[in-house]
């Protein structure tokens, strides 16, 4: 029998708030252990949680970015369980009345077709403390770092709309891009600011039943999510072939062995309304105010870039893959550069160079204005592509303007016919056999001769003019 996979995801996203969710402690989990703590997030006796408005605003923006319906009334529940990462025996989350319901994300499926993946709901939740297990030494010990306790998260729960690893990976990429656009979350899986659990079940192809699912955890990249799902589909298919029943449980992805292993039975603690955190009532007016804070989202921006700047869809998509990148692109174009040249040069030169130098847009020394200067000289044929690449390298290293760099290092392109003729004469007399070949009909030799001439000009000659003069001379 052919099986079809039914996949749903649960994604935890850390919100980039200045403070924790119920107290004023800084939201900086990475600081020295137990420095960002207070009686509230340690839940000392007498503590009263005070829900932060910033959490509500950022969570709302994130939900709006995913097309969710913000609920006029929502409330916190206590997820009851006892574990050392929880200082009070329950986690504050939203179960009965989540902040938002519905929503969707558009992806392109494996066959290149657009697909809408629906969300079930998204809710706010506090993060728990971090446990550090020291197993070496005579007595193994577990240390608790409460810096992360009470930091704000949203949990996004999808409908079981995904059918293969590609869907899940595409979903996560789009989700990440859209959330990053809002500026409310970093969404880095390897940093742990985005965490994803996958629920996977199988059913006979063409059926619409929902069978017992298996939950898989511990994937710390989007690729791992894809791999884990692929493995789990294979594992469950074999189980079914061997007539072994699928039992509800949780498995762990092992990235080294590339397999999933049994972790525990599925545990669902009770969820009871929390009496201490006030209910959240959201007015239409407030929601509109939040919606107006939402930036232009990527899919709309892509369409605009195609329309407004004449980019191809792929180019536009690439220029919109991150909000900072799209804003940089647009800033350079607004200064007067040709959009396609900018897109091309950003994609093939600037982005790789940034990666190499370890720069984000926030720290980029090559400001939009300096990059515009470079592109302008290129477009005006004042420098050739070779020189432009060298100038770009210098832009990372010095504070000079591109014009100054070109002048100082003599990158200016030589297009003047007299000077080029001198070079061509030299090349023709030095490479008699190549000249012979060309004259005998091997037209490819012209490339070699141009190359030699470029070398002789130390890369400064205008290659187009060189070729014209060469052809003229050898005709």
């Amino acid at each position, binding site marked *: 029998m052919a099986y079809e996979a039914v996949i749903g995801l649960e994604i935890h996203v850390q919100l980039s708030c200045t403070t924790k969710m119920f107290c004023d402690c800084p939201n900086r989990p990475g600081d020295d252990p137990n420095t960002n703590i207070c009686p509230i997030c340690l839940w000392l006796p007498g503590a009263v949680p005070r829900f932060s408005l910033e959490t509500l605003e950022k969570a709302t923006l994130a939900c709006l970015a995913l097309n969710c319906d913000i609920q006029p009334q929502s409330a916190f529940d206590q997820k009851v369980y006892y574990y050392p990462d929880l200082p009070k*025996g329950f986690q504050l989350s939203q179960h009965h009345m989540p902040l938002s319901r519905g929503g969707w994300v558009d992806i392109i499926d494996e066959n290149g077709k657009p697909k809408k993946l629906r969300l079930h709901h998204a809710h706010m939740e506090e993060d728990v403390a971090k446990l550090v297990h020291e197993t070496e030494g005579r007595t193994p010990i577990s240390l608790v770092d409460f810096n992360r306790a009470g930091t704000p998260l949203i949990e996004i729960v999808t409908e079981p709309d995904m059918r293969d690893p590609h869907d899940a990976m595409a979903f996560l990429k789009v989700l990440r891009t859209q959330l990053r656009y809002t500026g409310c979350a970093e969404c880095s899986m390897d940093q742990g600011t985005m965490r994803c659990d996958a629920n996977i079940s199988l059913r006979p192809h063409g059926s619409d039943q929902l069978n017992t699912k298996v939950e898989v955890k511990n994937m710390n990249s989007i690729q791992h999510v894809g791999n884990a799902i692929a493995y789990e589909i294979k594992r469950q298919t074999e189980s079914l072939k061997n007539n072994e029943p699928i039992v509800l449980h949780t498995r762990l992805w092992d990235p080294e062995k590339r397999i999933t292993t049994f972790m525990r039975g599925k545990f669902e603690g009770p969820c009871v309304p929390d*009496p201490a955190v006030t209910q959240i009532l959201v007015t239409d007016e407030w929601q509109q105010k939040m919606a107006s804070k939402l930036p232009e989202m990527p899919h709309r921006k892509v369409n605009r870039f195609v329309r407004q700047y004449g980019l191809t869809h792929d180019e536009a998509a690439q220029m919109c893959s991150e909000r900072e990148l799209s804003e940089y692109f647009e800033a350079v174009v607004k200064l007067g550069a040709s959009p396609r040249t900018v897109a091309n040069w950003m994609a093939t030169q600037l982005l790789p160079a940034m990666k190499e130098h370890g720069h984000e847009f926030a720290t980029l020394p090559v400001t939009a204005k300096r990059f515009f200067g470079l592109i302008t000289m290129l477009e005006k044929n004042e420098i050739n592509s070779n020189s432009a690449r060298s100038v770009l390298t210098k832009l990372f290293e010095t504070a000079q303007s591109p014009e100054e760099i070109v002048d100082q290092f003599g990158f200016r392109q030589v297009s003047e016919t007299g000077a080029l003729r001198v070079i061509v004469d030299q090349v023709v007399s030095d490479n008699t056999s190549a000249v012979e070949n060309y004259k005998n009909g091997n037209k490819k030799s012209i490339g070699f001769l141009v190359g030699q001439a470029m070398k002789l000009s130390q890369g400064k000659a205008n290659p187009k003019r060189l070729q014209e003069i060469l052809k003229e001379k050898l005709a």
Partner: protein
Amino acid sequence: MQETRYTYLDSSPSPALTDGALSGVSIAIQPNMSVRGWPTAAGSKALEGFTAIYDATVIEHLKHAGAHIKGSIRMSELGFGLAGDTGAKVLHKGDVDCLLVTDTMGEARMTACVAGDFGFKPSYGMVSRFGLIGLIPSMECCGIAAKNIKDIAGAMSVIAKSDSRDLSMPEFGADLDIPRFDRVFETRERIRSCGVIKECVDMLEIDESKAFGAAMARLAGRGLQIEEVHLKDFELAREVHNVIGAVEASSSAGKYDGVRYGHRAAAAKNWNDMYMNSRAESFGVLVKTYLFQGAYFQYENYNAFVDAARIRARLLAQTEAALERFDVLVLPTRRAAFDPSSAHTINTVYDVFSWTLIANITGHPAITLPHMVACGDTDLGLQLIGPRFQDERLLSMAARLADLDREAHHDGL
């Protein structure tokens, strides 16, 4: 011996401030109210040795007003019931002018009733809960017991202030008018009508009913309109409090794991055993039973909790509707046959607080007045429930009612 009534007596010099609103007023508190540097074990081994590291908002206000906070009394474990509590003795001895008692199901009112004093539970949200170690967050608030209403009003004028650290409170001056407890005796609110809760009267024993009836007749004789009013679900109040209270208590006590403070069991194989042993050794039988019961509703019978929450909403609506028709609702405070200090089981605790817990369920302010409902040797106390956030009006009406009763006695009625 004073020491037997207190867990902690403050030895620091009297407050320097001599012209504060509460200068010269002495106050005792329970060891579940945080005073920086004071032992704050809330009557439980689970908090053994715990010292508060900051002042509760209430304490901050009292200190700023120049009150002399004398010390902490002995209290029941985590303030559930009054077994082992020395509050009534402290009042009886006249140690202090005011006693602060966490009122979760009627403890402040009951303490006053037993001592023959006035006991007040403010509206939920009237007094900050920040720094008060509680058990049932949606029901408890800082109550006051005192020899007279004036001292209660005096303390309220200092502690009933908005607190940005407790978002369950309204913002006085924005959401609601700033309460003027200083005017309780200035304005002399008139009290015209009392609604007698029919369902409560029906549950009284014969002698209780006679005593209460006599008090009502006396007040009617002074021109007050006394009529029966229905609170249809009153009979269910006890179960509602029991179910919701146990569930909230179970969660609230979850933090007492012996890891960061309090009693920790000597040895354990792993952290799970450490939790279980520490908690097993920490809690007394009464609290343990209550926590078990709460866990039962959380894990096994959540629907019972949902039902209780729904009936709670009905009780609130019924109380509000009754208060549309009457200035106050009246009922006795305590039951003659049950001794608050010896109630050691869930059932007997709920027997004791049968008539007081309704105000904790609905969040209304309530006050008990002494010497008005004598049932044999027992003063049952006359309890008034007023509209929410009209606490100063309730105090004013209570003062007026006490005067009327005195006049009636004087006239030999």
